[in-house]
């Protein structure tokens, strides 16, 4: 315990870390060692002892993790003398899209369809009384209790996360650890447990990522949200293999 703010009378943890890592030159290291008190020496010993707790270096695991988040390609500005061509192409594309939309039959999507996006691989249930019943697309309020079913066929495990409108990622299954929640059986299987929602407002997206560990699933989901917001996340879930997502409107609603 160090009872007073550090006014330079003792080495900071950063200085001790730099000493332990060999970042200081001989003169700096010697000067710092002269300032070590008992607390600082204990901290240095703890740092050294932590070396024994480190897992073996695994370059390929690190490279996999580093590769899960890629930078969005920076837009390449069109040469100024070709700007008219870009405008023409955009106009033509808009006309084609407009024509295609005009030829479509009237939309018949019901609000409840939203609950079963992503090929039924993730289904949301809400607690009503003492039973979990299929969610029908209504807004879910503070303290609403939700459960989930996922499609287990062909999968060993699932990580179920939510992404709130601010982009905060929360992992619900597994409750702890880095291994995915194990899945057994075939077809739709319930995940044991439930989630009590908070007072979030806006669209919260629940995402099931199959056959990935927690860090990788979180990184992929975070990346998709960073690159495209909630809509981008839903698009990614629709397009990627082994991922399913459901967007839930939060705010005043079912509790």
């Amino acid at each position: 315990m160090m009872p007073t703010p550090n006014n330079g009378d003792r080495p900071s943890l950063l200085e001790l870390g730099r000493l332990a890592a060999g970042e200081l030159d001989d003169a700096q290291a010697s000067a710092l060692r002269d300032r070590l008190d008992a607390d600082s020496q204990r901290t240095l010993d703890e740092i050294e002892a932590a070396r024994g707790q480190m897992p073996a270096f695994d370059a390929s695991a690190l490279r996999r993790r580093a590769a899960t988040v890629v930078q969005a390609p920076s837009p390449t500005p069109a040469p100024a003398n070709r700007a008219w061509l870009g405008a023409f192409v955009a106009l033509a594309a808009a006309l084609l899209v407009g024509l295609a939309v005009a030829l479509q039959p009237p939309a018949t999507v019901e609000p409840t369809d939203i609950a079963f996006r992503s090929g039924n691989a993730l289904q949301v249930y809400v607690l009503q009384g003492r039973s979990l019943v299929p969610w029908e697309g209504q807004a879910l309020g503070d303290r609403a209790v939700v459960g989930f079913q996922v499609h287990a066929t062909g999968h060993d495990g699932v990580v179920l996360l939510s992404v709130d409108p601010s982009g905060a990622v929360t992992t619900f299954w597994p409750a702890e650890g880095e291994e995915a929640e194990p899945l057994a059986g075939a077809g739709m299987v319930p995940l044991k447990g439930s989630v009590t929602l908070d007072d979030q407002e806006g669209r919260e997206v629940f995402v099931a990522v199959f056959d990935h560990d927690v860090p990788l699933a979180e990184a992929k989901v975070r990346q998709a949200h960073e690159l495209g917001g909630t809509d981008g996340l839903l698009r990614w879930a629709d397009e990627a293999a082994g991922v399913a997502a459901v967007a839930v409107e939060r705010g005043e609603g079912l509790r």
Partner: protein
Amino acid sequence: MELTDQELAALYERYAHVLFHRCRRILRNDEDAHDAVQETFARVMRNAATFRQQSSPLTWMYSISTNYCLNQVRNRKGRRQKREDHKEEIGGPSVVQPTSEHTEDHARILELLDTVDEEVRAVVVHTYFDDCTRQETAKLVGLSVPTVRKRLNHFLDLARRQLGAAAVALTLATLLPLLRSLT
């Protein structure tokens, strides 16, 4: 230019345990601290060019691991608070809740950090968890020393308001031992 496996191995040997020790002070959990180390190294790899320019790689690693650690705390809190069991409907084991007073105090301080902006968070973490002087903190976050002092005062004001009666007399000198006891 990408870091080679040999370079990475050397960096890991030199820095991983130092980072782990520091992240564990914030997260108070070995597993999460290991995860923070892995993520920090992943970010080093993604930003190899910037990393190579650092005169103190550890200082840079400290900075980039700070927000990751605090986000981990937020996620962990979400997992503990939001996930519940309704055995009568679907069964499942109970989720262990933190019980010790220190864990709760630690959580309250970290909760407060979650309500302030990134700059204040960084200032508070470097000052209290890393025991940096104001000069060191200023250098780490790229602010002047008076601005660091202002950000710290902002956080202390917030702590006084949020922690209520228990912290009426809260001052820098009284908050510090509390924070220290949490690490």
